[in-house]
């Protein structure tokens, strides 16, 4: 539905932004395929180089107690700890556990929210990958209910 002129305009914008955004220091690391293919919280965390997993009160997972629909479940991960490299959001019983990983740097708060799909009721995790190789986690149970008449 887009006119050709419009498409060109958008492409130009994209090209321009990529040019200005392309600082070498910020080059995107290669997509962590092992992490996103992992079938458990432990394996996903390992793929980010973490050697140990410990529960921590300083990591927070935000999610509803009940999701009316598993297709869209709001989730957030945050931590107040210094030295965090990445914050991961995971759903234990999904076919692949890892939902998203956010890189933490000085320019942003270690506090990210998104929305995930959930196939069934499950524990959901926030994991903070620390600079020293530790992984600190918090979890919460989210019940997915069946809504509507479709059953």
């Amino acid at each position: 539905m887009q006119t050709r002129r419009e498409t060109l305009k958008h492409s130009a914008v994209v090209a321009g932004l990529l040019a200005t955004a392309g600082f070498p220091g910020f080059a995107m690391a290669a997509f962590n395929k092992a992490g996103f293919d992992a079938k458990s919280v432990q394996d996903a965390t390992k793929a980010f180089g973490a050697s140990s997993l410990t529960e921590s009160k300083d990591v927070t997972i935000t999610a509803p107690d009940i999701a009316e629909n598993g297709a869209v479940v709001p989730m957030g991960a945050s931590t107040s700890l210094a030295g965090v490299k990445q914050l991961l959001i995971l759903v234990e019983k999904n076919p692949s556990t890892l939902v998203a990983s956010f890189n933490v740097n000085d320019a942003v708060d270690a506090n990210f929210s998104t929305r995930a799909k959930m196939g069934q009721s499950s524990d959901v995790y926030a994991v903070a990958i620390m600079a020293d190789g530790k992984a600190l986690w918090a979890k919460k149970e989210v019940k997915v209910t069946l809504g509507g008449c479709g059953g």
Partner: protein
Amino acid sequence: MADPMRIRAQAAGGKATVRVLMSHEMESGQRKDAAGKTVPAWFIQEVTATLNGKQVLSAEWGPAVAKNPFMQFNIKSAKAGDKVAVTWKDNKGDTRTDEATVS
């Protein structure tokens, strides 16, 4: 060409809260079509954001992020008038960048 994003960036207490809605199928790769064939995964894989041209955020997503994704984050030391740009790239190589002004 993908549809535009909606980016809202609001300054408060020296920070900017950025809320982004993206237009994307986020096909999980788990679903079967009417003929019983698995629909291949098609999802946003990388998300980056810049403040006045300088990168402030990078994230990796898998196919479990919900369709028409939502993302929220806070940029430290941002003020009204600053420009926030968000870029996504999906596993088919399609990409989209949109920009908003912090209010």
